[in-house]
């Protein structure tokens, strides 16, 4: 299983529902500090009319969307990365600066700017206004979180602030849709721009902060009372004993939901696929085409699409944790453990999501500022037991380990074996991180800085939009790459034709390849059939099940038959070797591709693939010889 946030080609293919910029009257940049509610406003302005791509050449995501104005015109909104300043030091800041000054290749210079600031934290956030306003573009200063400001007893005079800054100001709540008229009015170009009373101060940070303080003072800004609920919740979530307990409960809930409660949804998708595939197949008179449809559609695409519910559930959980502000606390609690292996708390979030799939996890490392920490996290993420390993583990454990009570009635030997494999992957990740951080990725420590935002209720709209986005991307991938790989494999088992008929499988092209690599895998206790399975599992790990099922000439839905066949062909040592091989090996083309893209070359993915393969081979070799 894999998925990917975008493909380079998407940004060049014009989509019919997404008009090109030439047809649009305006391109407007949306910028603001992290935790200012920028994304909520972007969603409110553009709704479903948005697309995600990468900025050309770098891995920072570019969100663009179309905001339909009340008068029927449309403006193109570019959502820039959340930044604290425009001084180009991090990748995010460099991009924001380049886009705003029109220096970014492939992105038009925006005609106007929407600057989103948190009204409950005006002074600090106004420091970003200084460099933005001095760009000289028409800018609307949007003070978000108006509801919080009001509730906690803060206030300010909008007109005096606008007069001081020399920019129109709007006080809104993007979450509730309050005060949006001013934003639409600005986008329509119907807002006068006042002259500033005092030019923004840029030279150094303390002076800039003083300027922000003066702006606030002129506008009679009274900061709101401290967020009481956040303090109360933090005294539970960061409690020395209660905190870790809540943390553990959250992790267990996420896992339990993804692995157990998602089962009925997965079964539903499987049923839908098998029924539709079988119905289509029964309509086709030619047997070869019929079996192609069955294998490629039902067993190929179907075996991957069943993971859609899991992916969406995972993204829903991450969305809720992120939007509510809890994820920052979780990262804080995990920081100590991460520090022991030389990483930081921010690595924890990607590693947690790697339990579903390494691909989104590797993309989530973008939040880690330190490049070496980020690369170390990317390199260890594929050791986490992703959900594609789960079916493989289930099949082999069920075939070789008798189901007996192990620790009391609730933990059987099979469950213990499964937990052991999860721990094995985690241990490999931790040891590897330790090695990397004390050798090639040793880094001077950059300060660990993590903002603790106030807790907020997540909105269904924002989470729903994210799920729609991820779902579309995932289905697009299954419909292209995975269908293609499965179709190629199918053809290879039917060639070369002898007297117009498909050959026996060991003489087919696929069989020949399997027998060629057999000498290499023989020391691990694997035969050529397992070899073919291992090769196809490069596309996605669980492919080995459908490959072995068809190679052993059995119906894949008849798992007991496949288990018997495996018991005939594998010794217990060989089975353990296969499990350990899957725990360590990087059999996933999508992961390799995403690592290449995120690290900007073949060097790291090649190193990672070699390291994990050597570890997998050695581990499997030792397991086979010690147990066998």
């Amino acid at each position, binding site marked *: 299983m894999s998925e990917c946030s975008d493909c380079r080609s998407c940004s060049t293919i014009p989509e019919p529902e997404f008009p090109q910029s030439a047809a649009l009257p305006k391109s407007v940049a949306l910028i603001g500090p992290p935790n200012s509610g920028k994304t909520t406003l972007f969603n409110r302005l553009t709704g479903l009319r948005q697309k995600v791509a990468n900025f050309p050449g770098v891995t920072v995501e570019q969100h663009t969307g179309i905001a339909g104005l009340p008068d029927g015109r449309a403006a193109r909104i570019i959502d820039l990365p959340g930044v604290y300043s425009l001084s180009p030091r991090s990748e995010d800041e460099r991009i924001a600066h380049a886009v705003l000054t029109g220096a970014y290749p492939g992105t038009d210079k925006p005609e106007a700017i929407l600057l989103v600031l948190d009204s409950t934290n005006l002074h600090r956030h106004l420091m970003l206004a200084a460099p933005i306003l001095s760009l000289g573009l028409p800018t609307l200063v949007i003070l978000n979180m108006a509801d919080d400001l009001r509730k906690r007893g803060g206030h300010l005079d909008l007109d005096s602030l606008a007069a001081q800054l020399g920019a129109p100001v709007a006080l809104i709540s993007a979450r509730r849709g309050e005060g949006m008229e001013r934003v639409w009015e600005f986008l329509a170009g119907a807002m006068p721009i006042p002259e500033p009373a005092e030019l923004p101060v840029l030279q150094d940070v303390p002076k800039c*902060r003083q300027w922000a303080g003066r702006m606030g003072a002129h506008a009679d800004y009274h900061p709101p009372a401290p967020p009481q609920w956040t303090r109360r919740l933090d005294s539970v979530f*960061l*409690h020395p004993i209660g905190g870790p307990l809540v943390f553990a409960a959250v992790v267990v809930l996420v896992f339990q939901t993804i692995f157990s409660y998602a089962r009925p949804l997965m079964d539903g998708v499987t049923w839908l696929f098998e029924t539709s595939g079988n119905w289509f197949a029964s309509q086709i008179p030619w047997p070869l085409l019929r079996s192609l449809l069955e294998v490629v559609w039902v067993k190929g695409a179907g075996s991957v699409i069943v993971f859609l519910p899991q992916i969406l559930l995972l993204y829903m959980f991450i969305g809720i944790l992120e939007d509510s502000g809890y994820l920052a606390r979780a990262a804080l609690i995990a920081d100590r453990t991460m520090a022991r292996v030389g990483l930081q708390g921010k690595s924890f979030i990607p590693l947690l999501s790697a339990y579903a799939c390494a691909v989104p996890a590797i993309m989530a490392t973008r939040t880690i500022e330190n490049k070496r920490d980020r690369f170390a996290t990317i390199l260890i993420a594929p050791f986490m037991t992703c959900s594609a390993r789960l079916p493989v583990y289930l099949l082999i454990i069920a075939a070789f380990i008798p189901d007996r009570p192990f620790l009391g009635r609730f933990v059987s030997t099979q469950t213990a074996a499964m937990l052991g494999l999860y721990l094995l992957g985690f241990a490999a990740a931790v040891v590897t991180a330790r090695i990397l951080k004390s050798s090639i990725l040793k880094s001077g420590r950059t300060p660990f800085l993590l*903002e603790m935002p106030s807790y907020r209720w997540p909105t269904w709209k924002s989470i729903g939009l994210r799920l729609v986005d991820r779902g579309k991307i995932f289905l697009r991938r299954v419909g292209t790459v995975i269908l293609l790989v499965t179709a190629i494999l199918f053809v290879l088992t039917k060639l070369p034709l002898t007297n117009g008929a498909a050959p026996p499988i060991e003489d087919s092209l696929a069989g020949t390849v399997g027998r060629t690599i057999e000498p290499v895998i023989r020391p691990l206790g694997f035969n050529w059939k397992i070899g073919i399975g291992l090769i196809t599992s490069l596309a996605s790990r669980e492919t080995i099940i459908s490959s072995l099922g068809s190679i052993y000439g059995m119906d894949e839905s008849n798992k007991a038959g496949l288990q018997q066949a495996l018991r005939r062909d594998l010794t217990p040592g060989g089975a353990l070797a296969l499990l350990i091989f899957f725990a360590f090996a990087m059999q996933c083309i999508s992961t390799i591709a995403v690592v290449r893209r995120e690290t900007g070359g073949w060097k790291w993915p090649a190193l990672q693939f070699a390291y994990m393969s050597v570890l997998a081979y050695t581990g499997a070799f030792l397991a086979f010889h010690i147990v066998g």
Partner: protein
Amino acid sequence: MQLDVNKGLPETLVATLVDLRRGDAAVLDRIDLPGDDARRLMELGFLPGATVVAGQSAPGGDPRVFRVDGSEFALRRETARRLKVRPTPKATR
């Protein structure tokens, strides 16, 4: 301004953010870090002269949350140690 910095400790030790106990406030004096790192901290509000309040910490005491300029940020001990706070009237006696 509140300046009740950790009265229990000798003044020579009451010099960095690490020495603050939960709820203690102190005035930041200087940041003992390389230029870019110091600038990053300053952009978040850790400016000389700003009042910093120590908040909750992660279990085990590290990292700790600090309140500054209306926001909360977590800093590791190794970073907090480099943020020197001004000797307060009470501490200098």
